[in-house]
């Protein structure tokens, strides 16, 4: 049983810089692998809907006719599932967290390229169902 057990730590802390970052003035820490938010390269998307089927929270909605890809950021849990399963690698994980948003403002709708002309609508159903 001792007294003043904290003295060493107190002295150490006294002569060192604060452990916290002055956040808005200094940028927050970022890691290469951090899951911030999902982004899409519209030119590569073939509207195959794999991401929509694999999304555990059903945050992604792909319209094949309209050629749009829609993500509800408020539903998205940033699990990286869509990025991993995308066959054309058109989805990316950005390591920057998204800004504050309202429920309606969180919906991102992008018009995408859609399937290439020669291939007849690639894989709009069968392969993922098999797994």
């Amino acid at each position, binding site marked *: 049983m*001792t007294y003043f057990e904290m003295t060493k730590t107190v002295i150490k802390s006294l002569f060192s810089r604060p452990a916290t970052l002055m956040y808005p003035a200094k940028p927050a820490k970022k*890691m290469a*692998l951090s899951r911030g938010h999902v982004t899409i390269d519209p030119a590569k998307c073939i509207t195959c809907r794999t991401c929509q089927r694999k999304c*555990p929270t059903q945050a992604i909605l792909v319209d094949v006719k309209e050629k749009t890809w829609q993500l509800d950021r408020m539903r998205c849990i940033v*699990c990286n599932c869509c990025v*991993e399963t995308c066959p054309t690698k058109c989805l990316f994980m950005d390591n920057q967290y998204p800004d504050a948003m309202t429920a309606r403002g969180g919906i991102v709708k992008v018009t995408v390229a859609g399937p290439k002309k020669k291939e007849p609508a690639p894989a709009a159903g069968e392969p993922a169902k098999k*797994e």
Partner: protein
Amino acid sequence: MSKQITVPFGPQHPVLPEPIHLDLVLEDETVVDVIPSIGYVHRGLEKLVEKREYTEYIYVAERICGICSYIHSNTYAQGIEKIMNIEVPERAQYLRTIWSEYSRLHSHLLWLGLFADGMGFESVFMNAWKLREHVLDDMEATTGGRVIQGVCKVGGVRKDISPEKLDEMVKGLKGMESDLRDLTDVFLKDASVIHRLRGAGVLSKEDAYYLGAVGPTARGSGIETDIRQAGYAAYGKINFKPVVEQSGDSYARCAVRAKEMFTSIDIIEQCAKKIPEGPVEVKVTGAPDGEYFARAEQPRGEVIHYIKGNGKKNLVRHRVRTPTFTNIPPLVTLLKGCELADVPIVVLSIDPCIGCAER
């Protein structure tokens, strides 16, 4: 006999941000009876299993708790793998062990901070969370998430750690060890802390056994129970001894957690030495048909995932028994006979996680 009065404790209380409600029956200042009630944050996760595929449900299983998230996903994956007879690659087993121990470290540091805050020792709280930040940084650098790692999946893990990063992590932990020693010395040796904790909320060995205490609550009372000894993941190949204390009071439970952090660092070090090369995942096909009780040691104790599938993609039943749920009957016994002013400390000493307990 003096008059009995009832004092409500929670679900909103300054020292306990967790939504549990305790009706404390007092005689003067002494607690004579406790009536716990839970059900404030029930989310119905176990029903959701019927609506999600078994591979997707791992994200739900991980979100049962915000602190031991990784171990929940690990346990769930273990259960599914046992039903489907999937052989997980050895490297993945070691990686799972490393991340499990990281999550134990961060949970214990969080708890030590909260415990100190409960005693009114705010500078220790800040120090504990400062150290926890290093652990979380390593987690984020290797998995991509600070508290929800999302790295475990049925059939392996989704991310690999490079040997250089592993060395860096072990070096970082070694460097942290002296700071950690300074921090735990405050809990284990400081006169004011000992004065506050010694003799508060004593759970005898017999009570701990008969009331089914798990984790540090049981180990603080002298019961050597640790599911890691069963050898799931890579624990079977790691040499370690569970920390056991005999006195059964709040100090013993605090000491168990404080000393366990060093065991965790040691386990991570051993894993980094022994980890073999190879793949980290296997391809999973088919759907689970059968049932299994998967068990794992969480920072708070033993967690059980009961999983039942019928050969379809959606599971039939998923039941989780979390350590806090099991530790509520011991908590009631702990509180009987203690002073009203000791109640926050005693409740915190079992490390309650009500979000876990209610699912």
